[in-house]
């Protein structure tokens, strides 16, 4: 059936929005985002990170604890700077979204800080989803609220790439974030649980896309809409060890299983909805792989920087990390080129 041509909020900024999503936690999602963002930034792209995980791991990773505490203390004041500061007037029914500014990190990356109170908005989102099905304007405003906030910042800072750091769950907050994305990437560890997780991930994404398609086809004229067509950009393999220049055997069997599962549980499931949602062939689905840089992780967390911009750490390791992430960044640029975002 003819879809309502994706006309999200009439003036969606051209920045390409990407989520790193896996409801299985502990796959190194936050670390990946920071490194990919830094690599893209080194290639001259302007990158905005949006922390939509109420646990605020990304924010705490990048920003000093005292500053984060201060943001959280002041998030409900007129100077509030977190994502909740922007959402609160709408969520509490006292006004429209408040416009906020992004903070710039040492790596030259922009950040919309997360907030533990975002979980309150997540509660609203269940009702908001029902309201969308009932064609109520409030529902559409709620579903697109985060998208609007991001749009404002992307415009102001002339952003090229937006990355959402989302919580590890299949909840209503992740639903609106994923439906706002042009693409999503699955970070996956080389273990049994990561392989198993792909099945639920594929099915929930597919049902979100279908639901939103129904909602937007029946939406009244002139309400803000989400694009609702997140394309699969690929998965990134992580958390494996190398042995003599090759992936250690214990990990390579999971790597093969992940490749298969990404194809049958993600690509094929999405293609049933629309062939454009997942274009890659079996082997093209791997966007990149990143071995375990154990010692760099610690320095990177301490300094709030990427693996290759930290001051401590062995040069060889840093170079290796830089090569791996630059390759992923280049892949992302190449594969998102010509995305029909206005």
């Amino acid at each position, binding site marked *: *059936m003819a879809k*309502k041509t994706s006309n999200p909020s009439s003036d969606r900024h051209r920045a390409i929005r990407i989520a790193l999503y896996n409801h299985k936690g502990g796959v190194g999602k936050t670390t990946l985002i920071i490194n990919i963002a830094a690599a893209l930034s080194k290639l001259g792209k302007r990158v905005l990170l949006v922390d939509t995980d109420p646990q605020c791991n990304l924010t705490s990773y990048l920003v000093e604890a005292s500053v984060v505490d201060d943001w959280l203390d002041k998030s409900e004041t007129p100077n509030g700077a977190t994502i909740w500061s922007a959402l609160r007037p709408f969520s509490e029914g006292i006004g429209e979204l408040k416009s906020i500014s992004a903070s710039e990190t040492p790596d030259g990356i922009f950040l919309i800080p997360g907030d533990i109170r975002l979980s309150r908005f997540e509660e609203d989102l269940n009702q908001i989803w029902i309201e969308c099905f*009932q*064609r109520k304007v409030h529902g559409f405003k709620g579903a697109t609220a985060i998208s609007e906030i991001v749009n404002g910042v992307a415009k102001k800072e002339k952003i090229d790439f937006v990355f959402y750091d989302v919580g590890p769950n299949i909840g209503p907050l992740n639903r609106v974030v994923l439906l706002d994305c042009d693409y999503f990437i699955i970070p996956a560890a080389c273990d049994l649980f990561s392989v198993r997780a792909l099945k639920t991930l594929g099915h929930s994404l597919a049902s979100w896309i279908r639901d939103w398609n*129904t909602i937007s*086809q*029946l939406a*009244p004229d002139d309400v803000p809409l989400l694009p609702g067509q997140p394309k699969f950009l690929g998965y990134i393999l992580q958390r494996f060890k190398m042995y003599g220049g090759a992936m250690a055997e214990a990990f390579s069997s999971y790597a093969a299983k992940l490749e298969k599962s990404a194809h049958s549980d993600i690509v094929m499931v999405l293609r049933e909805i629309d062939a454009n949602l997942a274009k890659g062939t079996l082997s093209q689905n791997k966007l990149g792989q990143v071995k375990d840089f154990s010692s760099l992780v610690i320095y990177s967390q301490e300094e709030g920087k990427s693996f290759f911009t930290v001051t401590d750490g062995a040069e060889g390791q840093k170079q290796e990390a830089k090569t791996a992430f630059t390759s992923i960044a280049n892949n992302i640029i190449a594969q998102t080129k010509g995305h029909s975002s206005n």
Partner: protein
Amino acid sequence: MKKVIINKQQRKLIDELVNYYIDNKRLLQVLLDQVASSVSSSQKLRPPLIHSVKSRLKDPEHLRDKLQRKMVEANEKQKRFMITTKNLFSKINDLAGYRIIHLHTTQFQEIDTELKNILGEQSWILHEGPSARTWDDEYREYFNTIGVDVNRSPNLYTSVHYIIKANKDNPVTCEIQVRTLMEEVWGEVDHSINYPHKSESHSCREQIKVLARVTSSSSRLVDSIFSSHKDFQEHAAGQMANLKTNKTRPKKKK
């Protein structure tokens, strides 16, 4: 009856159209639920103004019959059959159907006003209608005076139709029908006997025609009863008021 054959290719097209409808049934079901929730949000569109509501999605086999009939008709007239999956939803408007049933015809004006209010408030697009179908001269007059288009109904029934849409871009529609409970009885009988294929029994067809006349008279009788009742109540209320004013007046002493 002369049998016109639908060829293999045409049959395939009809299958394709019916399957397309089945694939999109969920969308139409959501649309229908939305219409129902819009109507039920009104404080007025409930008893006593309306008696009850009904909603249904068209049975896919009934759609098949309808398409086959149209195909045969096109073949007979040597015209092109114009329905494709691209325009199915804009050509067939009663796939999602919602019905408002009320007691007597003159309630219609108030129902129409309220229904239009609700549709406007909730940003529905009134794509077509309201248009009434009736064969009864007196009712035609009634609908004309309240500004509703009237078409002659060869089927002998009286009802008013609206076609609504969710927005400008999407072709799916919902048909809202408003009719009286008496007409509902006639409609149900006619539907059971004559749908999807007209009964071949002469006497059945005859009796259904007579039933339409009885239905019309019954509807008219209910209108009359309610109008008499109202008139009586107003009259009685007037008398009571008179009595009260008489009582408050000081009585003359003898």
